[in-house]
């Protein structure tokens, strides 16, 4: 069972306490954007086999959203960080690179 640490309240919980929210750091497009931009924002997903940055909500806890880096090929969790950021923290990127030398990096 997947266990993640919520950076908002600091507790480590199992997935039944969490709600998954899909790919993180999507750039939002709204009214006025082109069809391509809107389609990409709404539907096109990286869905990598490997390192994935994703949104989770501590649904049956503090209720807050947070972000996590996780490997979809092994289920290894690299770490969580607050949702109020536009890209993953540098320490986390460094940690992932150490564990996954072949990883092409964020983006």
């Amino acid at each position: 069972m997947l266990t993640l640490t919520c950076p908002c309240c600091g507790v480590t919980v199992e997935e039944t306490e969490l709600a998954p929210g899909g790919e993180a750091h999507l750039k939002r497009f709204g009214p006025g954007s082109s069809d391509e931009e809107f389609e990409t924002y709404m539907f096109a997903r990286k869905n990598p086999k490997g390192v994935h940055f994703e949104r989770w909500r501590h649904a049956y806890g503090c209720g807050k959203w947070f972000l996590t880096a996780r490997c979809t090929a092994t289920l290894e969790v690299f770490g969580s960080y607050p949702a109020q950021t536009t890209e993953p923290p540098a320490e986390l990127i460094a940690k992932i690179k150490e564990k996954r030398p072949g990883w092409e990096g964020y983006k």
Partner: protein
Amino acid sequence: MRRYSIFAVAREALRYHSGWEKAWASPEPKKRYDVIIVGAGGHGLATAYYLGKVHGITNVAIIEKGWLGGGNTGRNTTIIRSNYLQDPSAAIYEKARSLYEELSADLNYNVMFSPRGLLMLAQSEHEMRGYKRTVYANNLQGVETRWIERDEVKSLVPILNIDGPRYPVLGALYQERGGTARHDAVAWGYARKCSAMGMDIIQNCEVTGVRTARGKVVGVNTTKGEIDCNKLAMVVAGHSSVLAEMAGFRLPIESAALQAWVSEPIKPTIDVVVMANLVHGYMSQSDKGELVIGGGTDGFNNYTQRGSWHHVEQTTRALVETFPVISRLKMLRQWGGIVDMTGDRSPILSKTPVEGIYVNCGWGTGGFKAIPGSGYAMAELVAKEYSPLAADFSLKRFKEGQFIDESVAAGVAH
């Protein structure tokens, strides 16, 4: 290829079964093919089969990283039905279901199609209205389904607890010619025919790159070297995003784990397929006597073929409430597959941004039932650049907002 028949069985019985041929050849790849299909699951093999049978294209390779039928095709719970809501879905799923009726004869391979009847239970007012609407839609589409009242449900499924108390059964959407088939046999039967037509099925060979030049496909890189092609069909279910990435585009697909499990074998207990979508579980009985059970998909991206435990727990709990007699059965084994989910829960059969590359994916939790129809349509798309059955399932629908919304109609994974 020698035909399978009662005479062949008798002949072999008399000579210690020494005369059976290999069902398919395992050749080394050639330098070049007219069409390369990536993925030897049901959909890839069926695409190859109808390319040869209907369109006369047989210079085809089907490249598979594992063993043929080892993906979702060999991991599913084999439910076959065509009681979908939207017209494009009814068309392709009913095409598939009707091809299943004749498939054993067509392939000269017993796929054990068993149209034993399928019920979708209505356990809330909302579901009841939804299924009645589906029945009306199906009648207009020429798909034979009907609404049945709770007494008829009980007589079809005596072990069903229809009184609740939490979720009493109010009736059911009934498709009399829905049912199951033998999943491995579907893959094996198509593979045998493809091989007999001279196509190359190349197993244990992973596609690791896609080569393009001036926006057009040239070939693939594999663990057995470079192979060239005119056209490339990606039919890899849960790995569709990985293949698309190799060719430089993204798909509206997310991969997630879906699980199934079976009980110890018991005497014949239930001779129809029952889906209880509200409580998120479904059950049928295999010919071996095992109860075959499935439930919901995990909510997070996953390529490990290992699902979350709580889904097994929830679904089993729901089914014990629905079928109290199963409460003391032991569950024998459990497994998972990686399903390719789209936002509208409908598949993608489409051209792509790269000329000569076609995708067939997004069948998600319910593509076993579609294999013959999907292969038929995909072969037409690859051969002729257009297929009426596939037209509405193009990638364009995500830009245009022309979704084929089956998420409400399906409710549970199957």
